[in-house]
């Protein structure tokens, strides 16, 4: 029983005179309780897939089934974390996090209250009244995370959430995301994360969907099956990483 299923999803765009197929006949599914990573070189349509799942754009052909229904509009049970953070620069941390609740019709006071709770969860207590420009990159992305989980989505979509951050910050944030994922208080059913870092995928995911570029097609699906917390130095970790590397390189040649 899958929560989310893509069935032969194809997406083409019209660029001036030519038709470009960005995603070609992609099929995979995400089960409840699964952390799935989409891995592939840049330009393989990973982000396009996330946008289709969130219901911002629609497939040219094929279907996306969410909880037995085909997606026909913005998916209210999903939330997104952006590579660029996409925070509202004129709102404080707390207002940013509470915005999603306000949009759902919650009263402002209650929304701000609930926002506080999730700001604490991502370790930003004390920064509630700061503006995004006063925060470091890592802290901004924590706000992005808090904003996403505050609306208590079933699926968390993450679009290269760590690509704009420095390497040390990334190491910390990866573990914190895993902690949030394993936090029983958060009613999250699944995570779908897009990344171009193979190590990151192997470190975080239960299942990795490997893609090729132009057009974006699925090369392979790999179940990671390592216990958490994972160790990047471990031999089995390295083996899985190597397999994915060779898959991608082979496809390119």
């Amino acid at each position, binding site marked *: 029983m899958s929560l989310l299923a893509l069935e032969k999803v194809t997406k083409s765009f019209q660029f001036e005179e030519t038709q470009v197929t960005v995603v070609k006949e992609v099929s995979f599914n995400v089960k409840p309780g699964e952390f799935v990573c989409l891995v592939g070189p840049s330009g393989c349509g990973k982000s396009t897939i996330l946008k289709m799942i969130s219901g911002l754009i629609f497939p040219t052909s094929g279907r996306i089934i969410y909880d037995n229904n085909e997606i026909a509009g913005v998916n209210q049970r999903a939330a997104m974390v952006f590579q660029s953070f996409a925070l509202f620069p004129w709102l404080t941390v707390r207002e940013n996090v509470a915005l999603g609740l306000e949009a*759902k019709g919650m009263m402002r006071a209650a929304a701000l209250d609930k926002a506080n709770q999730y700001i604490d969860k991502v370790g930003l207590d004390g920064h509630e009244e700061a503006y995004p420009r006063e925060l470091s990159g890592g802290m901004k992305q924590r706000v992005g995370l808090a904003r996403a989980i505050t609306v208590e989505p079933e699926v968390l979509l993450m679009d290269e959430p760590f690509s704009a951050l420095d390497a040390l910050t990334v190491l910390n944030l990866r573990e914190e995301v895993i902690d949030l994922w394993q936090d029983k208080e958060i009613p999250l059913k699944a995570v779908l994360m897009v990344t171009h870092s193979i190590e990151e995928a192997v470190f975080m995911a239960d299942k990795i969907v490997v893609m090729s570029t132009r057009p974006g097609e699925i090369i392979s699906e790999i179940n990671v099956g390592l216990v958490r917390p994972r160790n990047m130095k471990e031999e089995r970790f390295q083996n899985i990483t190597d397999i994915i590397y060779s898959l991608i390189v082979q496809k390119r040649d």
Partner: protein
Amino acid sequence: MQKTKQWLSGTVFFILMIAAIYLITQKQLLPSPKPKFPTALSNLPYYAFYSFSRMFFAYIFALLFSLLYGLTAALKKGADKIMMPILDVLQSVPVLGFFPAAVFFFIGIFSGRLGVELASIFLIFTSQAWNMTFGVYEAVKGIPKDLKESSLIYGVKGYQALKKLYLPAAANRLVYNSVLSWAGGWYFLVATEIIASGSTNYRLPGLGSFLVITSARGQIGLTLIGLAVLVTIIVAMDLLLWRPLTVWSEKFRYEFTAGAAETHHSLLLGLFNRFRSTQVFKLLIKALKQIVYLPVNAVGVLINSWLLYYRRRQGVQLFFRFIGKALYWLILIGLVYIFYLSAAALAKAARAPIPTDARLIPLATLASMGRLAIAYLISLLWTIPMAVKIAGSRRAARFLTPFFEISASIPATALFPLMIVYIVRYTGSVNFAAILLVLTGMQWYLLFNLISGATSIPGDLKEVAEMMGLKGWLYWRKLVLPAIFPALITGSITAWGGGWNALIVAEYFNFGQKTFSVFGIGSLLDQATYVRSADSSQMILFSLVFMIAVIMALNRFFWRPLYNFALKRFKLEY
């Protein structure tokens, strides 16, 4: 310390300017018979030629001025502390108010037609030059430090640096601001021609005066043909000169400052894109390059080799140093002398009895501000939703943008005669007509600033909002309004600037025998100019000074703080 110095140079300049106006307007104009103005269609090409020539000469002067002034301010150490506040004063002054003074001045030196022509060219020049100068200054100041350092290390100096570093750095902004200045120039060209045709002593034959006189004589058909000719010239200039130049100058942008200027080529975009790939276009670009480069290069090489040759001779070096020193002292003495003259003139003005009409000035300014405020609110009401609509939908943009750009490219002043005729005929309210005229002088600044503000809302912010289900008032309050706020303020500042100028033409409109006027600072100023009496020059002086003081106070104590707040709080960068 720095601040006071800037204040000081601005204020001193302001006083000098006032005094100069006073001195100039004290001269009496000699009455001369009003020249005839034939409106046969066969005369139209001449009128078009006259108008275009005025624009052309004014632009050439503006170009030279902007390069000289802008480069000096940017490159000479400490110069900008004095030069930029002066430019700031000049820019915030409503140019049209100075037309009477300019006419007096130039007729005083060159009597008759030549004087009026020069006054018109001077006025167009003042409407174009400041904006271009700011462009040059900011572009040269904004050259990345490592680029400047690397040219120092490689020993690029003098003319070489000018050609390889400063001019290319300024090219993009200069072209971009030239397009704006050129468009603004049409507005003022037509305005001066209209103002001149209201006078009893002189006249400026041209498209603008053709429009006024034909509509005053009820020859509406001819007015429309005149308008069509004007629009054709404007569009042709745009397609044949400004678009190619803009595209050419894009290559001088640094990669890392890209983004802000993406919306350049949208007028008749499709047509232009097709045109762009043709052989004709490439040839045109090549020819333009040659026209610009050849003389510049020739002069540059000459100066360079000449410098190289003479630099080694001590005598010549000493001679130039002496010339430089002498010039410096001459300018200083000249300034002191002007200052003395100004002080004397002001003292005299202070001693003279204040004209009885002068007490009307504050109330008149208030009335004019009221008109501006109403026109501003009307502009806001339609431009904000329109800009957001255009930014949000590609289809709306495709249909509406060319429409608005063509409408905006018609200088609003050219529509004044027709509008006056019809609005006053059907509503009977000159006040309503004046507000509408001011509106046409304000709205486009707001619209285009808002469009660029609204299109620069980042896509992912819009996506977040969509995913959250942010709708209605909440969507406007949390996303749209904050995001366009800086653009709104910039647009408002320029719109008010345009509005003050429009007032001068809108509040007092002379139509042959008939004169339409409403009570306001613009009409006081115009009246003092046209209906000469003993205290006319004092009235011109007082009205101008009061109006400029109000405008500068508004800028400094209202718009500037608001602008700073907008930048601090609502800037889109993270």
